[in-house]
């Protein structure tokens, strides 16, 4: 199988913390809202609704944890490998010579954890090579390295 002898790198552990925080906040809000709405009819209904919201949050936490763990990438001599996905597992191979441009973005949550997402674009819209949750310095290093390699190996359409 391709890439078995590679050293795969992973997103920063802080990504899991950030995702957990997101799930936690949403779960807490949902639990409060469900509790209040259910509580209008009876206290029991309110409790059950809030508990259901918490259970859903717990499941979401499991899913998020597996999803973050599944994400990894490897830089090879001529292409970048990106592995992701739990239910639908994907392995993308993007040759450096095919890169059109590279984005580095950071949302508010990612920014507060000092993380960034690196995304590669090729001329094909369906190529998806996105690596979230990289430490800022690693994101910048990856971007510069990819840009350098992309320039050296650039191919026409």
């Amino acid at each position: 199988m391709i890439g078995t002898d590679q050293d795969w790198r992973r997103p920063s552990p802080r990504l899991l913390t950030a995702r957990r925080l997101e799930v936690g906040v949403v779960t807490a809000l949902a639990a409060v809202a469900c509790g209040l709405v259910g509580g209008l009819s009876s206290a029991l209904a309110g409790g059950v609704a809030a508990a259901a919201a918490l259970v859903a949050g717990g499941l979401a936490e499991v899913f998020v944890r597996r999803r973050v763990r599944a994400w990894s990438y490897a830089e090879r001599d001529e292409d970048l490998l990106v592995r992701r996905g739990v239910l639908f597992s994907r392995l993308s191979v993007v040759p450096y010579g095919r890169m059109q441009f590279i984005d580095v973005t950071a949302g508010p949550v990612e920014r507060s954890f000092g993380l960034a997402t690196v995304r590669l674009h090729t001329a094909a819209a369906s190529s998806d090579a996105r690596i979230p949750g990289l430490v800022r310095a690693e994101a910048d290093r990856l971007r510069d390295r990819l840009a350098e390699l992309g320039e050296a190996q650039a191919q026409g359409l």
Partner: protein
Amino acid sequence: MSGPVDWRRLHPLSPVVRAGRATIGLVVVLAPSALVGRTSSSSLPELGFVGVLAALGFVSWLVTRWRIDGDDLQIETGLIRRQSLRFPLSQVQAIDIVRPGLARVVRVAELRLRMAGTTGGTARLAYLPEREAEPLRAQLLALAHGTAEQRDAHDDEREVVLASVAPVRLAVSILLSDIGFFSVGILVGLGLAAVFAPRVAAAILGGGAVPIVGSATLLWRRFNQEYRLTLAEASDGLRVRSGLIALTSETIRPGRVQAVRMVEPFIWRRFGWCRLEVDVAGRQRRKGEGEAQRRPLRAVLPVGSRELAFGLLRRLVPDVPAAELRPPPRVRWKSPLRYRFLAWGRSDRCVVTRTGRIRRVTVWVPLAKAQSLRRVQGPLQRRLGLASVHLDTAGRNVHATLRDRDVAEADRALGDLVGLCRAARRGPP
């Protein structure tokens, strides 16, 4: 390279032609009162309206100009929001000459340069005098090839006709294609219903008028676009000419083909007919785009025998492989319908995939054109020990997918294809 050339303007009638249907409508509306010849006060607002439109059109013509500057085509337009566009000719994928009905009446033509990349748009020179369009296209293509010297006109005229389709055959084939067959079935059913039970027919018509009109438009558009299609090989690439009301003439440069697709609807297969379409790099479909950009793939052969299609295919893609590798039988559980035709194959420079049930679709992608590769495995596939490998191209909507292969085979194919793609990119074009 030729230095900066003077700015040139488009044909003065351009705004009239560009307004197209609106102009025809306006003439139809205003003709009666003009013919009667009365200049009473009631027609004054109409005249004023026409005057304002004419003035706007004139201004838009006045502020638009273009020139060839070294290796770029430069277009400037706009009065209030001035726009200066530069199109590097080295990135031209194809050049079309388009002549809508009205443009043919006033003898003008539009030159459309399709550029590469998802962000690259289409450079439009609308409209040029008809006799200037052809030489200008030859000049632009020559510049795009990097050969600045002008070739003489005779050289361009030398072309070999590879295929042409008779109108009757095109009409029959469209009616027998999958969309056509269902539309005809619906229309016949409606006709019968109208004879025997007019009320039922009226009710059906009331409920389903939109899809019926929609499919009829689709059929008509295909007929209109592919009427008298001729495919010829010239020194600068393959030339495709076609059209009933609007004439288009397109040059597909060699080595710019991203993918070739062969479509065989179910009735066609009985006759051994097929349709061959070519995908070149260009903007991906986006919301709110004009009809012209959203049109389907370019057919190089709207209908023809498989032998003819394979002959053409050999000119379009290198090293044509056959789709002969069948998926394992357990794929029936996952894709019961698709299983029938599912297959793939490869040579050292090209991949072929086949799928579909009612319409069999075969796609060839030259490995030198693959942008990235993906191996995808869904939950059901994991249960069955299957995986798919996708090849992404810069084309508009054709992608090759090695669907539902055994995991070991998919992994091996991915590894092989990565290496072969690399070699194909390096190797001679």
